[in-house]
């Protein structure tokens, strides 16, 4: 007889043998997919920047897994998070390792179907599935999870995962720009700070927090430098830049910054030699919508950049992409309270997640898109939505209206966590890109 506390609220008891078999199969697939994706990226851009080597390495989960395991043995704690609203600065300040635990494995989403209905967003289902068979090393290694209650799926995901490890829920206000929202969110940030301190045993003092903020600012700076480089003719393929961006979710932040700066140095040299990754008249595409997570959910960028005619991704509005790093924490005074305020405001107010509304109804997202389109000279937008992602799907109409007014073609791509529709999607993406290149010719 199991005690009440040990009994799992959601998760089924799977036979050990089945779990083992599934894990073996899916891990093998995952390894294959990682290698395949990197191979494809190398093929698209035969003279890929040297700096990408490091990111290819870190993209393979095992390397970082080993590092984290070693750090854990030395007593470091690992704190996972599901949405990017989790205050990474606080985790870093407590000398813990932040990792994002959302799953991008297609096969795992089918396992998630056993617990939640298929209508639920596949990102959530896949994360549940990954947990069932202990697939994601970061999810397994994390000592606690910060679950930010953004959309419905994420809210319940935290609850489901609490079957395994402590989950700290942070309720994020849905109205972004009111005084009472900010008050609530600051309280949440303070509460989670206390929890992080209790778990790690390290008190977060203003000195550590300042240095943590500076570290993330440096990362943002490096990332923004990469983004600036993408404004001109394509000096790096979109997938490569996206991979750089994705690895931030689990890599060591200082090393990541260093390697990204090195990559930017190299790209700058290439740009001065007019050594482009693909012809400069390639249609420039922006992708927005549901997060795309390495390794499996890489099909849309792959399709765009391998299509004939080819397209190139130069910017995105994804919470697995630019939004991770675009906004810095701006501190006015380096006192504890002001730093906490700055962190709270950066995560709440600067975000363009459609889970929010505000006085003007999430106009920030529209502005973000307009700015990207003008500054990055975007010729077409792919609006990517996975089935079940209500919030992004619902905002499509508004985005389309604005983009139509600017006569920027937008293509609504709805899909699932599956490989089966790649062939059919390829036709559609190619038709869209053909239309874009026809427009450029005119």
């Amino acid at each position, binding site marked *: 007889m199991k005690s009440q506390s040990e009994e799992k609220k959601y998760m089924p008891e799977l036979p050990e043998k089945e779990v083992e078999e599934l894990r073996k199969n899916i891990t093998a697939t995952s390894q294959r997919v990682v290698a395949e994706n990197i191979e494809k990226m190398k093929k698209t851009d035969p003279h890929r920047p040297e700096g990408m080597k490091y990111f290819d390495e870190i993209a393979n989960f095992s390397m970082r897994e080993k590092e984290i395991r070693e750090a854990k043995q030395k007593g470091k704690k690992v704190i996972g998070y599901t949405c990017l609203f989790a205050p990474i600065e606080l985790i870093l300040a407590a000398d813990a390792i932040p990792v994002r635990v959302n799953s991008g494995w297609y096969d795992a989403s089918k396992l998630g179907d056993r617990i939640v209905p298929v209508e639920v967003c596949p990102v959530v289902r896949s994360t549940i599935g990954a947990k069932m068979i202990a697939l994601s090393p970061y999810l397994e290694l994390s000592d606690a999870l910060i679950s930010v209650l953004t959309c419905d799926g994420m809210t319940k995901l935290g609850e489901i995962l609490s079957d395994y490890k402590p989950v700290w829920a942070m309720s994020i206000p849905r109205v*972004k*720009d009111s005084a009472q929202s*900010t008050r609530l969110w600051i309280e949440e940030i303070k509460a989670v700070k206390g929890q992080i301190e209790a778990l790690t045993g390290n008190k977060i003092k*203003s000195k550590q927090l300042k240095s943590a903020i*500076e*570290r993330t*600012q*440096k990362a*943002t*700076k490096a990332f*923004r430098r990469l983004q*600036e480089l993408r404004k001109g003719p394509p000096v790096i393929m979109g997938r490569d830049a996206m991979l750089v961006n994705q690895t931030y979710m689990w890599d060591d932040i200082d090393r990541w910054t260093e390697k990204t700066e090195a990559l930017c140095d190299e790209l700058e040299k290439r740009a001065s030699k007019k050594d482009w990754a693909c012809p400069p008249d390639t249609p420039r595409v922006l992708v927005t919508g549901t997060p795309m997570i390495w390794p499996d959910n890489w099909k849309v960028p792959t399709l765009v950049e391998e299509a004939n005619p080819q397209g190139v991704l130069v910017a995105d509005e994804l919470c697995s992409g630019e939004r991770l790093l*675009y*906004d*810095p924490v*701006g*501190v*006015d*005074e*380096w*006192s504890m*309270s*002001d730093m906490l*305020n*700055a962190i709270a*405001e*950066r995560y709440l*107010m*600067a975000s*363009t997640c459609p889970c929010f509304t*505000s006085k*003007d109804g999430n106009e*920030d997202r529209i*502005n*973000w898109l*307009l*700015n990207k389109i*003008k500054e990055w000279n975007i010729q077409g937008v792919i609006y990517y939505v996975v089935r079940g992602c209500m919030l992004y799907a619902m905002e499509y109409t508004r985005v389309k209206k604005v983009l139509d007014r600017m006569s920027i073609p937008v293509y609504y791509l709805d899909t699932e966590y599956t490989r089966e529709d790649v062939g059919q999607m390829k036709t559609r993406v190619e038709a869209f890109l053909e239309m874009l290149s026809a427009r450029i010719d005119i």
Partner: protein
Amino acid sequence: MTMEFLGEFLKVTVLAGLALAGILVILIWKKGLATRVTYLRFLVQVVAMVAVFYMFTYPIWQLVLMIVILVLPLFLGRVFCGWICPFALYMDAITLIRKAAKVRYRLLPDKLNKSLHNLRYVLLLVFLLLPFVLVLLDPPGSLDLATLLALRLGGPFEPWRVVVGPIIPLVVPWVGPLAIGEIYFSYPYVQEVILYSQVVFNELAVNIIAVVFVALTFVGSFFVRRVWCRFCPTGSSIAVVNRFKGFKWAPLLHLDKDEEKCTKCGICKRVCPVQVTEVYEQKGGKINTSMCMLCTRCVEMCPYEDCLKVKFGGKTVFKSRNWLEPSTIE
């Protein structure tokens, strides 16, 4: 003898101060900190205070200063308040003390802040009308009204001084309210406070009132950034003009916001020393609020390239940029 020596001493000090400021400029320039507006502002404020001290040694300069204060804002907005005013320098210095003491600043509620903004007109009116009211209270007697009015305006009550009030430096070249040895000390508005309270109270009470006034402003600006700027009557001239539609063209110098580049991250609202919310709330374009002192702290801190700009007659003077250079932000 002592007076002469003191005069020479003061001159040397002032010259040394200016030289130091020059060296500081070169240092800041070399370190690539020239873009750090906060440093630059402190420097301008220090130099301006020295200049104001010299101006006050000659009455005619007071007049020039007054004209500058009254006319310049029509075209430059409240740049005077943000960059030159010595009282603002005291308050910024007190802010530095507070920062060193690691005390958190307090925010005034937005509503109170807005009504304080309107209080400046009331203060201005009271100061300007008081001498006339005193004439009415004090029967003319043998003197005719015109003579008495002239006496009142020229005499101890100088209503126009309300405008120069905050510019009075700590050390004054005339007989100030407080003397230590041969050096006279003053404080913005303290002379006015003493003069006006003398009408009603005896000397002891007047002294107490003066001390209380100084203490209040000190404590106020310790906890609230730039507390006096929120209702300072000097800042009203541009504000008055800005209220009328026909004068919207007048400010040559103003803030400009690009709505599309703004992500509403709220940094501009948080760093503003007088809690101006318009920069955050307004949907792009010219920022027309007369609460803004053009200290450009928000432009300095805004992390989005080109989002906030300071424009002078249509030309961009200074703009927000990707400022992420850790450790040098403050």
